[in-house]
């Protein structure tokens, strides 16, 4: 498999997981979907809503994956065993959004973004932040082929260049314009109180809103 055709594990089969699994399967990736539930509990959801993706046990899906996508609510993150993700490239698409999902004391930090705190816990994984700043409904209907006019941009933040490169290719292939915005700390600008959260934008507008080019 390797970099040309990474194998994808989507953790979560709810609002967000089923959308990412569908986009990845439609883009031609081998996709496994796993949750903490038994595979048979999510089999029908995946069959109907993400045709082509497979349902696996969590540890199997992760073990064989080159790219693991955390599509679970942030308050469930604490139940995930960090050892499972050792050495993996991990996309953190979770958000800390207290108004909507409640307060989590460990994420009430002014000095670190949520993905930096996720990365600190997953200290043997290579964490990249992206896919978090558009809603699942926007991801669901805004994917477009490369070169399409107005194609939506997704910011990518990560500290590991090879991991960022893998994720950049993934974002592009599932239908969004990848924009590298810097290290994981720069990912704070993709968070709920940031300038691009929840607003679908093309690359030019996105880069302007993020201050990556002069306004």
């Amino acid at each position, binding site marked *: 498999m390797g970099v040309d055709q990474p194998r994808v594990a989507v953790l979560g*089969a*709810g*609002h967000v997981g*089923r959308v990412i699994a569908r986009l990845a399967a439609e883009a031609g990736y081998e996709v496994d979907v796993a949750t903490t539930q038994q595979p048979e509990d999510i089999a*029908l*959801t995946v069959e*109907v*809503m993400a045709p082509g993706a497979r349902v696996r046990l969590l540890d199997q899906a992760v073990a064989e994956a080159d790219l693991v996508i955390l599509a679970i*609510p942030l*308050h469930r993150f604490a139940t995930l065993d960090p050892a499972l993700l050792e050495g993996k490239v991990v996309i953190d698409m979770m958000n800390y*959004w207290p*108004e*909507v*999902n*409640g307060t*989590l004391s460990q994420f009430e930090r002014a000095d670190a973004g949520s993905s930096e705190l996720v990365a600190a816990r997953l200290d043997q994984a290579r964490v990249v932040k992206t896919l978090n700043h558009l*809603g*699942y*409904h*926007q991801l*669901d*209907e805004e994917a477009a082929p490369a070169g399409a006019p107005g194609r939506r941009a997704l910011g990518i933040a990560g500290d590991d260049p090879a991991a960022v490169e893998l994720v950049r290719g993934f974002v592009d292939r599932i239908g969004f314009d990848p924009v590298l915005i810097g290290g994981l700390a720069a990912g704070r600008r993709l968070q*709920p109180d940031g300038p691009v*959260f*929840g*607003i679908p934008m093309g690359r030019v507008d996105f880069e302007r809103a993020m201050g990556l080019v002069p306004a």
Partner: protein
Amino acid sequence: MSEPSFPLTFGLDTFGDLTSENGVPSTHAQTIRDIVEQGVVAEQVGLDFFGIGEHHTNDWPMPAADVALAAIAARTSRIHVGSAVTVLSSDDPVRVFQRFSTLNAISNGRAEVVLGRGSSIESFPLFGYDLADYEELFEEKTALFAEIVKGGPVTWRGRMRPPLNGQDIVPHLDAPLPVSIGVGGSPHSVLRAARHGFNLMLAIIGGQPARFAPFSQLFIQALAKLDKPRLPIGVHSPGHVAETDERAKEEFWPVYRDIIAKIGPSRGFPPPTPEFFEREVGPRGALYVGSPETVAMKIATNLPVLSANRFDLKHGMPGMSQAVLLRSIELFGTEVVPRAKELLENAPVLPG
């Protein structure tokens, strides 16, 4: 799989949107009286259902929707009355059943319940619930509600509520109490509805309606796997009707823009632009705003795609005048619904 046909039904939903008169916002109390009036007019113009969604804010002062529904029930004889939605997660399933079985008694079997979270998360801090427990609260309380609705003494044990030991929960129903689960994006909720044999109500408040077709398919296939009969599927979407498309948009856009801009930061909606609004109002959007013909066409286009037999227009927005709302209700009942039925009855039947 052959598609059973359920009767086409058309309803009106409100969240208790604050009304206005001559540009002046009404009081909460006047708003509630206005909404009771809207329910009465909804019956007069021939609609099948009037729903009120529980909310707890200054713009939507409607925490006790069932009380308002009881007032409407007392002044009507045919229209069904129900929630849209009841926020079961922050309520007690026993009390919800008691209130709606009482409503069913008052209305002579016209009560319905739609369970869900809706967009009303204000009830969580208000009643001391943690939003992080949302999924577990909803799962457990829905299961208990399903037990209670079956009738007979209930014995039950869970984490979110004290146990029940063979207790009889009154008043007993002498007519069915239809229960739906409102779904905005969670496949788990679709499966939950199928498992409990509840109807499915798709809350489509933005984006392409067809995006929800897989939810209907999931519901239909889950029911089949459980050897349960096919159950009705409904659609709830916002909108407004006036004589012309232009007038409808002029009346709706300013209040829509203002309320989305106001609540957006806490719900992840960006402030709407005119372009965004035009897209939502157009054929690929979720807003049913326009002339009777435009709205009827949109309903008739989307219901078959979603395997749905029911459409509930969420009418009004905080700040709209009661006079404008009543005219929209009249046009919806007397022009949109007959035209949508005509279009749907001549439409090809899509496979379920």
